[in-house]
């Protein structure tokens, strides 16, 4: 490689056309991307999408069949995991039960030949930064789930890696602690400024934590973007379906009006949505409408002018505080549709089987050519 001067925003991680095949399938399919220094990058995908394989290739536990991984400007091909400037936080954390908390944190330093006194000092300083000062002598099993999480991160960060990989580290925690740890992780990353690559199947974790998220499916990235882009402008039907809650409506295009197409479902319900590509009449499509995009009204006239008014029957009420929603069925087609209840509490008195009007802005309903088996 030529000795190009490193740019200020040089990527810490560059993945170049990496391929990994297993006997019966391709786990990672010619994938390329880069992660900017100091950013929090998430790879979001369902289980079996290849994200774990990708992460283990970055860590060095698996060798790619093709392509190259460059970390901090250095190609990692042929570099063993213990020689990479990368550390990993494991799904089950993998703290060493035979060692104290302090010894866990000092483990990597000892491997680098740091003198005992110095590594104890640095371990203690690191524990202090993750608010665990004085816990160095404790046994691992004396810590709470959240504290262990912090030890696992401290154990890696004390080595000042270029890149920290996190393999669904919150998966084992209960919901409440998970919510708490999300915030803590984000704060830790901000405080240390280390580049984080985080894999998860939980879209909420990915959206809350990340600067950038890659949505992965079948060994490829469907879309890479900020959480907002993914949410509001999904590039594919898969992203639209995977990120956030969504009403998915499959149908056939009956009319095209610029970017807006009119489509009708198999049961004859007709809606309008903005399509990502120009589509011809008769094309099979999938439209997605987010629950918070649709509006409810007891009187049809209260709905914004110019939007198609639909009539629904209340099927059930899903109370979940700020995330409460109503599940209704379109009157004629019996199509199931979910709409978020406004925070104002205006529709708190809805009853099951009640008839109600709803509409949505077709500009905010997205549609894609139906995913055939060719993708």
């Amino acid at each position, binding site marked *: 490689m030529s000795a190009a001067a490193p740019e200020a925003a040089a990527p810490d991680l560059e993945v170049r056309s990496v391929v990994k095949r297993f006997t019966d399938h391709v786990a990672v399919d010619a994938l390329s991307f880069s992660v900017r220094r100091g950013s929090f990058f998430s790879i979001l995908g369902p289980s079996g999408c290849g994200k774990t394989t990708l992460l283990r290739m970055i*860590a*060095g*536990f698996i060798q790619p069949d093709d392509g190259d991984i460059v970390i901090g400007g250095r190609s990692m091909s042929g570099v*063993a*995991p*213990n*020689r990479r400037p*990368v*550390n*990993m936080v*494991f*799904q*089950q954390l*993998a703290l*060493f*039960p*035979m*060692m104290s908390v302090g010894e866990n944190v000092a*483990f*990597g330093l*000892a*491997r*680098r030949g740091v003198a005992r006194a110095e590594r104890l000092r640095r371990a203690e300083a690191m524990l202090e930064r993750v608010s665990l000062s004085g816990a160095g002598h404790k046994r691992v099993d004396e810590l709470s789930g959240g504290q262990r999480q912090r030890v696992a991160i401290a*154990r*890696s960060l004390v*080595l000042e890696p270029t890149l920290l990989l996190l393999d669904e580290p919150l998966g084992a925690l209960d919901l409440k602690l998970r919510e708490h740890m999300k915030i803590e992780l984000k704060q830790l990353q901000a405080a240390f400024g280390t580049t984080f690559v985080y894999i998860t199947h939980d879209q909420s974790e990915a959206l809350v934590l990340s600067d950038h998220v890659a949505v992965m499916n079948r060994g490829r990235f469907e879309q890479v973007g900020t959480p907002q882009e993914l949410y509001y402008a999904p590039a594919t039907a898969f992203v639209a379906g995977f990120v956030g809650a969504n009403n998915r409506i499959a149908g056939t295009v009956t009319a095209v009006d610029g970017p807006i197409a009119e489509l009708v479902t198999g049961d004859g319900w007709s809606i309008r949505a903005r399509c990502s590509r120009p589509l011809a009449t008769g094309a099979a499509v999938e439209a997605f409408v987010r629950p918070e995009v649709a509006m409810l009204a007891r009187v049809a006239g209260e709905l914004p002018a110019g939007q198609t008014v639909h009539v629904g029957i209340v099927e059930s009420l899903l109370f979940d505080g700020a995330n409460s929603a109503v599940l209704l069925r379109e009157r004629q087609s019996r199509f199931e549709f979910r709409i978020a209840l406004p925070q104002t509490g205006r529709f708190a008195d809805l009853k099951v089987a009640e008839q109600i009007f709803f509409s949505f802005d077709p500009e905010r309903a997205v549609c894609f050519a139906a995913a055939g088996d060719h993708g």
Partner: protein
Amino acid sequence: MVDTPAGGAWKGRLMLGLMLAPAVLWLFALIVLPHVDLALLSFRERLAPRQYGASLAQYRTFFGEPLYWHVFVRTAVMSAIATALTLLFAFPVAWTIAKLTRGRTSALLFVVCLIPFWVSETVRTLGWMILLRESGVLPQLLAHLGVTDVPVELLYHDATILVGLVYTSLLFMVVPLVNSFESLDNSLIEAAYDLGGNAGSILREIVIPHATPGITAGCIVVFMLTLGNYLTPNLLGGKNSQWFTEQIYTQFITRFNWEQGAAFGFLLLALSTAMVWVGLKASGQRFGDVMRRA
């Protein structure tokens, strides 16, 4: 009529007692009583035909006769060496079974370790003798290949005894080690590797500390088996075997000197207890924990 809780508890205890009774009786009749009998035997001396008196003569003989001392210490040292060698050989085998293979391959490897135990110890040892004797397969082969000028006697050496003992003990070391290794989470090894560890430091810092109870259990079992082995050292060591169990057998059977034999038996028991205790102390383990792993 409903049982009172107290009545229920009493019945529960009775049931437990009844269930334990056979085991307790068995232990008492077959282990405690004979040992008491042997202890009494070891503290008496033959004065005249059919006349015996209390005495420490048997123990004095042991300490006064360098020959017995020599054999005693030799048995302990050889057993310790055999145990260490068994650990050395069993470690990679157990690691392969527990970590590097799975399913059928792993089961197959285990069976390979088990195969020697399908035949009796006698047959196994005689098999070694056929292989190693001067007119046997291996010396003939070595001579044929020109490694040695003439077939050499491979039997009746200390090394031969050790080979036989290690072979006989391997399974008893492999089983607790496999258990230990299987309970070791692979991600711990990966994490250590990821944090800069290499094979040596991972073995030293992660694998061995994790497997210590299993290693200790295996070593205790193998050491006891080896110390108490009679057939293998006797047959493979021949005239030079000098195993302490042979002394006990000789005293009981050939010399009709039950008193001396009983004293020797107790000394061997004391030795094995002492070595186990030292082993536990050295590895910082508790006996109960270790035996659960065995």
